[in-house]
């Protein structure tokens, strides 16, 4: 090593204490013998020391209490972002969220029931409802308002053929409609889960704000 000079990388690694013990011994041996490398190392060391001496003094930041006072105010205001973040922060207020959740759950249930009817798990509801509506519309004891409401429904059901609707016979049609119902039901279940997560996060955030 004494025959050639040290590389800049080796000199810097030497000054930074990054050399392995065996390499370090060789470098020290070389520096003892080579005035040129010794001078180059001293130059580098002077630059390092000069920079290190300009490091800000600890007392430049002695006002720790002021720092924390300022910071804690910002942390409190960012508390909501910690608990209700991302897309959940765009969700509506609690009351609207609860109404939305109820509607979505009802729509999801209707789809699930519809799907189960189409695949034959539950008997068709249309004929049973039609029979009930005919009975109620023809019964003089039924309140007038109900009869008034049922008459057009019964007429519409007859026109649409709901009262004749039995078990579906076309298997392909059954599967298609059943799958559509199930997919819609699953999508609504996901939306309902998001609503629930949002409500959970929001209520959790409010509870922890109450504690602090």
């Amino acid at each position, binding site marked *: 090593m004494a025959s050639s000079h040290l590389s800049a*990388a080796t000199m810097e690694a030497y000054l930074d204490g990054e050399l392995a013990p065996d390499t370090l011994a060789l470098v020290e041996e070389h520096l003892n013998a080579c005035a040129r490398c010794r001078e180059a190392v001293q130059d580098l060391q002077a630059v390092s020391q000069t920079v290190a001496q300009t490091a800000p003094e*600890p007392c430049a930041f002695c006002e720790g209490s002021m720092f924390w006072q300022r910071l804690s105010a910002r942390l409190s205001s960012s508390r909501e972002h910690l608990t209700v973040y991302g897309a959940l922060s765009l969700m509506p207020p609690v009351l609207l969220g609860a109404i939305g959740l109820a509607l979505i759950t009802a729509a999801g249930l209707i789809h699930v029931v519809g799907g189960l009817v189409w695949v034959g798990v539950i008997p068709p509801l249309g004929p049973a409802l039609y029979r009930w509506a005919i009975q109620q519309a023809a019964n003089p004891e039924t309140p007038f308002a109900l009869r008034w409401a049922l008459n057009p429904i019964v007429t519409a059901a007859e026109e649409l053929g709901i009262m004749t609707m039995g078990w579906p016979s076309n298997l392909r049609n059954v599967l298609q409609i059943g799958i559509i119902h199930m997919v819609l039901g699953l999508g609504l279940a996901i939306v309902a889960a998001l609503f629930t997560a949002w409500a959970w996060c929001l209520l959790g955030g409010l509870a922890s704000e109450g504690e602090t």
Partner: protein
Amino acid sequence: MDAERELDNELVRRAAHGDMEAFGQIVERHRLRVLRTAHGIVGSSDEAEDVAQEVFVKAWQSIDTFRPGGSLGAWLYRITVNAAIDATRRRRPQVALDDIAPPPSDQHIERSVMDAEEAARVRRAVQNLPPASRAALVLREYEQLSYAEIADVLNIPMGTVMSRLHYARQALKQTLSSQEDGHGL
């Protein structure tokens, strides 16, 4: 060292559950390092304090993403370097002027060996380095981090750390020696 890391991890666990007192302890334990590093990169005390505030707000908001068992110091250094470099990019090409004549401190008498004007010249020279080299130099010279630690903080290979440090030192050496010639020192 392990005890320090364990304490940090415990404080992180508590802070992740919303314990602000635990987070306050984290701030107190790492505040000076964050401030010093930010100061080295942005070059002014006021701006360094703003960056440090930003760093701890980000840390609070994303503390649950901190990998348990990792080094909290390295994680905070990483956030600090990124936030400080962003801050310098936002306000370029302004030069920090508030540290030209820092008051001498009784606690660090050896530092007053270098006079204020010379210190300001060195800081200006550091500020003129490219941000990536400046960050590596600050972590090495101010924070005394090893090459491996700097590589971890900056998420770069060790060889890149060495080349950035080399570039920074050579550039500083050149700048400072030309300034000395210009000042007739």
